[in-house]
C-alpha cells in the first residue's frame, strides 16, 4: 500500500467513525476534524490525498471550506451531502470538490466512490494520449475524428469540443457551468446554458445506440453530465 493519508471533516463523531472505518482498507492513516477550521488546518499540515467533507458543519458552509482547502491542496475532495438541493452539489463541484455522496450512503457505495476518485487521480498524473477509447468510441485528438465501431461520427466543431471535454474527464461529474466554460470559453453563462442541453441531446443521438438509454453520457440530475468511466 502506498503511503496515503485521508482526512475526514464531520462534526458528528459517529459519522467520522464509520467513514474512517470504511477508509481504513485504502489508507494507512486517517485523520479526523470536527470543524471546518480544523479541517482546513489539518489539510495543510497532513497533506492528505483524499478529504471527505460533510456539508452540515456548524462553523462554516461546505462551499467556503471547500474553496479554502482548494487554495493550498490538490487532494481529492468527496462531499457528504444530506441535503436535497442539487444546486448546492453543483456549487460544491464548482468550488473544487471532485464528487459527492448523498446521505444515507452505504459503506460499499462510499468505498466505490473513493476508489474511483483515487483511480482517476492516478490516471490524471499519467496524462492522456492523442487517442482516447471508450467502449465502441475512439477519439483521435490529432486527426480530430470520432469513430464508433470503426465508422466515422460527424460532429459539428461545438459537439466535437463537448465530447472531447466530457471524454477526457471520464468518470467525473462536470457541472453545467464547468462544461459551458470549457466548451464556450469567454462566453457569459446565464441564458446561453440552454445551448449546452440542446448540444448534449444532439450528441447523444449521434454517439449512443439509444439516446433514451445512454451508455456514454450520463445525466446527473440538476448538476450536470458525466461521461462513463473507463473500465
Amino acid at each position, binding site marked *: 500500500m502506498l503511503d496515503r493519508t485521508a482526512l475526514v471533516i464531520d462534526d*458528528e463523531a*459517529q*459519522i467520522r467513525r*464509520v*467513514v474512517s*472505518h*470504511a477508509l481504513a482498507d485504502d489508507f494507512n492513516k486517517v485523520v479526523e476534524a470536527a470543524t471546518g477550521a480544523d479541517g482546513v488546518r489539518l489539510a495543510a499540515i497532513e497533506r492528505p490525498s483524499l478529504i471527505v467533507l460533510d*456539508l*452540515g458543519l456548524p462553523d462554516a458552509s461546505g462551499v467556503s471550506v471547500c474553496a479554502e482547502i482548494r487554495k493550498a491542496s490538490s487532494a481529492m475532495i468527496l462531499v*457528504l451531502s*444530506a*441535503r*436535497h*438541493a*442539487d*444546486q448546492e452539489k453543483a456549487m460544491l463541484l464548482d468550488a473544487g470538490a471532485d464528487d459527492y455522496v448523498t*446521505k*444515507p*450512503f*452505504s*459503506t*460499499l457505495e462510499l468505498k466505490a466512490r473513493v476508489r474511483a476518485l483515487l483511480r482517476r487521480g492516478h490516471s490524471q498524473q499519467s496524462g492522456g494520449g492523442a487517442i482516447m477509447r471508450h467502449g465502441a468510441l475512439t477519439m483521435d485528438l490529432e486527426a480530430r475524428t470520432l469513430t464508433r465501431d470503426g465508422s466515422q461520427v460527424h460532429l459539428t466543431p461545438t459537439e466535437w469540443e463537448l465530447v472531447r471535454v466530457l471524454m477526457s474527464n471520464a468518470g467525473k461529474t462536470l457541472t453545467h457551468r464547468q462544461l459551458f466554460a470549457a466548451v464556450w470559453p469567454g462566453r457569459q453563462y446565464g441564458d446561453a*446554458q*440552454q445551448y449546452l*442541453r*440542446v448540444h*448534449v*441531446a*444532439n450528441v*447523444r*443521438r449521434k454517439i449512443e445506440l439509444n*439516446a*433514451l*438509454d*445512454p451508455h456514454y453520457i*450520463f*445525466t446527473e*440530475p*440538476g448538476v450536470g453530465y458525466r461521461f462513463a468511466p473507463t473500465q
Partner: protein
Amino acid sequence: MTSDRVNPSRALVWTAAFVVLIAATLAMLAARDHLGEAHVALVFLLVVLGASAAGGRLLGVTVALAAFLAFDWFFLPPFNTLWVRNPFDWLVLLVFLVTSVVAAQLLYRARAERVAVERAEASREADKLKDALLASLSHDLRTPLTTIKALAHELQTLGDERTLIIEEEADRLNRLVTDLLEVARLEGGALPLDIQTNAADDLLGAVMQQVSGRPDHDRLKVSLENPAALSFGRFDFVHSLRILGNLVDNAFKYAPPGSSIELTGGLEKDALVFRVSDHGSGIPTSERDRVFTPFYRSPKASGQQSSGLGLSIARGLAEAQGGTLTYAERNGGGAMFELRLPAVTA
C-alpha cells in the same frame, strides 16, 4: 409605522397635530401685522406635512382643511369672516389647499410603497428561513440513518443476515423523510424551482438510468411519439424526474409482476406530454380524485410499503412548474398518468 395603527397612539397623534396647528395659528396671530400671505401659507404647509407624516393621509387632509379655514378666517382681510375681499386672495387660498392635499397624498403613497417593499422583504426572509430550517432538519434526520446503515453493514461482515433488514429499513425511513420534507416544502411554499430549457430525451434517459438498478428494469419501455424530432420544454429537471420516477415506481409496485410498463414522451401543441401506462387493474372511478390527496392509500395497496404521498407530491411538483398531472384509463385497461409541461416551440 403604518396608518392602520392602534387607537391610543393614533388619538395622541391627532391631538398633537391640532395642538401644533392651534399654537402656530396663535403665534402668527400675535405677529399678524408683520406677516405676508406667503409666510402664513408656508407655516401652515409645514404643519400639514408634519401631520400627514405622523398620522397618515386622513389626518393630513383634515389638518389641511382646518388650516385652510384658519388661513381664511384669521389672516385674509376682512379678518374674522370667511369672506375674502381681494379676489387674488382666493387664488392664494386655493393654491394652498391643493398643495397641502397633494403633498399629504404623495407622502402617503411613498409610505405605502415603503411598507409594501418591507413586507415583500419580510416574506422573502421567511421563505429563506423555511428553506434553511427544512435543510437542517433534513441533515439532522439523515445523519443518524447514515450511522445506522454503516454500522449494520459492519455487523453484516460478521455474518448476521438480519443486518440486511436493518439497512433496508433505514432506506425505507429515508424515503419517508424525503417524502415528508417534500410535502412540507410544497405546502409551505418553500419549494426551490430551477426552470430551464430541457430535452425530452434527457428526462426519459434519466428515468431509465434511475430504474436501471432494479432486477426487472427491462419491464419499462421508453419511447418517443416522434423519434426523429428533438423536443424541448421549460421545466425543472429534478422535480420532473421525481414525478416520472414516482409514477414509474407505482407502476412497478401495482401492475402484475412481469407485465410491461410504457413511458412515452411527445410534443402536443404547446405542451410536452409524458405518459406512464401499465397493464394492471387501473384505479376505480370512486378513487380517482382521492389518489392525489396526501396520505391516501388505496385499500388495494394494503400489502405494499407506501407512505401515500407519492402521487400528491407528483401533482404538487407538476403544478409548481406550470404543468398538470392527470389520470385516465389506458386504452384496453390499466392505469395511465399524463404529465404535461410547458414546451419550447420554435
